[in-house]
C-alpha cells in the first residue's frame, strides 16, 4: 500500500514536471517556467529546439539548424518603418562595431513582419545600410508567425488613414533578442538600450 502511494506520488511529481518542461498552450503555462528554465534544463537536459524555416536576403533557405553554434541578435521589423527599425538596426550595428573581434560569433538578424513588401531583394538593399553581417529573413506569413511565436514576438498591420493601399504601417515587438549556440534565449534588450551598454552586456555573455 505504502509502495503504491510512493510510486503514485513520484508519478504525479514527474507528470507535473513534465508538463512544466514540455510546456503546453502558451497562455496556460506556469509562471515558474519563466524563472526556472536553466534549472530545469540542467536537471532534465536541454529544451527542445523549436524549428523554423525562412528565406534569407540572398534567397537561400535557412532553418533553425543554419546558425548552430552562433549567437543570434534578432530584431523584428519592416523596411518601410521610418523610425524604430532604422534606429534598432543602427544600434545593433554600433554595438557590434564596439565589440570588434568579440563579435565574431554573433550574427545580427532582421526578420521582416511585412513579407508583402519586403522581398529578399528589398531586404538585401536595405541591410546594406547597416552592419555587413546582417542577415535578412522573410517567408510566408505562416513561417514568419512560427518564428515570431518562438520569440514570443508579435506584430500587427495597422490601419492607415491614407487612401493609398501601398502605404501601411506595422506595429511590432521592438525588443532585440539574443539567443545562444544552443538556440535558446539568453536575454533581450529593449530598444532604448544604448549601443555601448548592449556591447558591454554582449561581451560579458560571450566571455562567460
Amino acid at each position: 500500500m505504502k509502495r503504491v502511494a510512493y510510486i503514485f506520488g513520484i508519478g504525479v511529481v514527474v507528470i507535473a514536471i513534465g508538463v512544466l518542461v514540455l510546456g503546453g498552450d502558451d497562455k496556460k503555462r506556469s509562471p515558474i517556467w519563466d524563472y526556472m528554465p536553466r534549472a530545469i534544463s540542467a536537471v532534465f537536459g536541454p529544451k527542445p529546439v523549436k524549428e523554423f524555416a525562412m528565406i534569407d536576403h540572398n534567397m537561400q533557405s535557412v532553418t533553425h539548424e543554419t546558425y548552430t553554434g552562433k549567437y543570434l541578435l534578432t530584431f523584428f521589423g519592416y523596411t518601410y518603418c521610418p523610425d524604430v527599425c532604422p534606429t534598432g538596426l543602427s544600434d545593433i550595428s554600433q554595438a557590434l562595431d564596439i565589440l570588434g573581434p568579440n563579435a565574431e560569433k554573433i550574427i545580427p538578424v532582421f526578420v521582416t513582419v511585412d513579407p508583402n513588401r519586403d522581398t529578399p531583394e528589398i531586404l538585401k538593399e536595405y541591410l546594406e545600410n547597416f552592419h555587413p553581417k546582417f542577415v535578412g529573413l522573410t517567408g510566408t506569413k505562416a513561417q514568419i508567425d512560427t518564428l515570431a511565436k518562438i520569440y514570443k514576438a508579435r506584430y500587427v498591420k495597422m490601419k492607415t488613414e491614407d487612401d493609398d493601399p501601398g502605404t501601411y504601417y506595422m506595429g511590432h515587438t521592438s525588443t532585440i533578442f539574443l539567443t545562444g549556440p544552443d538556440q535558446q534565449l539568453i536575454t533581450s534588450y529593449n530598444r532604448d538600450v544604448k549601443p555601448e551598454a548592449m556591447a558591454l552586456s554582449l561581451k560579458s555573455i560571450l566571455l562567460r
Partner: protein
Amino acid sequence: MTHKILLNTLFASAFLLASNGVFAKDYQLGDLKISSPWARASAGPAKTGAAYIVKISNTGAKMDRLIGVAGSIAKRVETHNNIIENGIAKMRHVNAIDVHPGHATSLKPGGYHIMLMGLKAPLKAGQTFPLTLSFEKAGEIEVTVEVKKIGAGRKMKMDRSKMKH
C-alpha cells in the same frame, strides 16, 4: 604663388566644413532655440520618412508647444510619438509637443518625431529640405533639415561609409 595656396586652402576648408555638415544650424525664435533639425534617408521604395530635432530649448517663463509642421517634401507631415501597447511598438499621431519653460524637448529616434508621409521623392543622405515649424506662442519658423544616412546613430557620429570591413 602664396596667393594660389591661400585660395586653395580656403576652398579646401570651405569644402571640408560643408561636407561635415557643420552648417547644422541652430535657430532662435522668441524664447525658443531650435537645434539641428535632421532626417533619415528613406529606405528604397518606402514613401515614409522620419525627421527629428536634436533639441528645442525654452528659455522663457511660459510653456510653448509645437502644434504643427508643414513642408512640401511629403503629402502629409505630422508629429508622432512611439508607444508600446501590449508589447507592440506603434506610432501615434500627436497634436502638440510641449516645450516647458526652462526645459528642452527632443524629437529623436524612438521618441517624438516628425513623420513625412507620402514622400514625393526618396530622401537621400546629403540633401536638405525646408520644414515650417508652428509654435503656439512663438509663431512660425522655416528650418532647413539635413538628411543623414539611414543608419545614422542617435548621436549622428558614426558614418558607416568611412568604415572598412
